[in-house]
């Protein structure tokens, strides 16, 4: 299905997605939206893995399994992160990241 599309296209797409995620991570103030940015980043990585696997090493499955594991990790990460967010919300009554700076100094 992927014939006619060079691998670079996928990689460029993933790059753009990745840096969009980065941008979001750096600018969003809300912890949940930051979490979403992280999901974007992970997705971009997944795309890369799969593209490489498909184009460069089609006889192997490392890329795919890695993506699979990343999805698993992302899921657990999301679970824990959201638990933390809820806890923070309880404690500080906000999930604005700039107000949560108890770790300062």
């Amino acid at each position, binding site marked *: 299905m992927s014939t006619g599309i060079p691998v670079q296209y996928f990689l460029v797409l993933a790059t753009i997605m990745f840096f969009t995620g980065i941008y979001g991570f750096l600018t969003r103030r809300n912890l949940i939206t930051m979490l979403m940015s992280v999901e974007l980043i992970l997705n971009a990585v997944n795309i890369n893995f799969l593209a490489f696997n498909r184009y460069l090493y089609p006889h192997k499955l490392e890329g795919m399994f890695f993506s699979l594991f990343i999805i698993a990790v992302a899921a657990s990460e999301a679970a824990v992160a959201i638990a933390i967010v809820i806890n923070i919300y309880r404690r500080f009554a906000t999930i604005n*990241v700039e107000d949560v700076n108890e770790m300062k100094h």
Partner: protein
Amino acid sequence: MINFSYTIWIPLLPFFMFIFLGLAGHKYFPKLSGILGTCGLAIITVLSYITAYKYFFTTEKVDGAFQKITAFNTTWLQFTDKLHIDLGVLLDPISVMMLVVITTVSLMVHIYSLGYMKGEKGFERFFAFLSLFSFSMLGLVLATNIFQMYIFWELVGVSSFLLIGFYYQKPSAVRASKKAFIVTRFADLGFLIGILILSFNTKTFDFISLTDPSGTAITQGSGIGFLGLSIMTWSMIFVFMGGVGKSAMFPFHIWLPDAMEGPTPVSALIHAATMVVAGVYLVARMFPIYALAAPVALNIVAYVGAFSSIFAAIIACTQTDIKRVLAYSTMSQIGYMMLALGVSGYGGHEGLGYMASMFHLFTHAMFKALLFLGAGAIIHAVHSNHMTEMGGLRKYLPITHITFLIACLTIAGIPPLSGFFSKDEILAAALHHNKLLFAVEYAVAGLTAFYMFRLYFSVFWGKETAYHHTPHEAPATMTIPLIILAIGSVLTGFIPFNQLVTSDGRAFESELELMVAIPSVLIGLLGIGIAYILYKKESAIPDKLAATFKYSYKWAYNKFYMDEVYLFVTKKIIFKLISEPVAWFDRNVVDATMNAIASVTQGVSFRIRGFQSGQLQKYGFVFITGAIMLAILFIYLWK
């Protein structure tokens, strides 16, 4: 050879007495300690007399000369193979003579103090200090080496400090003691440097090898030069600086008048008869080096002595505190002794000045102690130091009056009292050496007679003064020493010093030189005469004279403003210009630099701490920027 090893007990006995009285006296026998101290001193006086007799009359002379005998010697501290401090007893004519002087005067002072200090607070402390002083002074004169001398030199300094400050609740006494110590300490610095230079070149501290006229020390030392003078000369000049301080010569004399704040017996013992002549003794001790290897230094000795004697004599004419008059008189007389040493040569008749100096030291100790003790008796009776508050005391204090008169005549050089003989020898020695110094000493002789009789007439004659309570003669403990010393003053002039104490230990002939003696007696009489006219009866002439020579009088009265100069140097220069800036510098520059280092570190760390803001996104930003930078660096820039 006669065994002199017992002489070690002469200094040690007072030392143990000091420890004993100092530790136990206060608690257990405050009353008895005076008697104990006096007894101890009496024992060593007897020992000293025995030693003197044995040394001068029973010890065999070698080659017609008295030998230096090391009666006892032990190494106290080893520096290098050759340099070591020994503690020991060296007997030679001058040390034996000093033994006699010190023990005699000290014994008199002890007896006198039994009466004078009776009932004072700290009676036992006083005697403990006196014992300490006797110990140190005896150790000083018996020293076998120059470093031992320095040790005891410091110890007499500190005993003097303790005794001047005996009335420690009196601020003036405290000030005076401090001043005495610091001024002499400064001079001792010179002494120490002198010792170091000397020992560096000769590699020995020992007096016998240092002063051996044919020894290596003297023959080698004149070689190496520095600023035009030989090293030996330099070292002798520095050593003499110590002597200048201790003997209150110009310019280190300022402590002596103030030292009169101490109890009067102390003034008699330390600041008239014994400690202050230590400088003379020091020069006499090192005399062969001065005479043979460092003539320039010897000349300095002569001029310093001459200047001090006339300087002090002029000031003495204007002072009104009797103890201060006596103090300046002491300074003047020590100037005489210094001068005598300075004009002396080594050996035979050349050494007349040396002999004269020692002779004068001896007689001076007697009559000056007598004068001070007499002054003490007067003060005891009148409760004042000031001549202006005295007058007509001859009726109340007959014994004091007679003995005081004898002392005054002695110091004025009236024959046949002892002062005449010794002063005459000095003048004769000066005449042969240097006419200028001779003329100066003539003037001083006249001045001396004048101010002593000024003192005598104003105190015992002069105006009739009303006293609060009738002055009465002192108790026997005080008058007996006066009488003994008066007898001493009269008779000691007949001791044949030219047979006993000479520069090279050999006797030489000397006779009275009438050409010198007659004018000196005349000038003495002239001084007495002037004093008689001015002060016998109450008269206005002195005030008029003072008014006529207003400025000179004022200068002399204020001791030529030497105190002020010193005050300026210490307060303004040392304290304000050195110490306080140093302290300021330390706090505000050195310490501030250290603190600045600390603050910079702290400041930087505060800055760095700002990075740790807890802002997750800042961390992220820095991380990502950093990663990108590194990527650029490693991929594109760092090929």
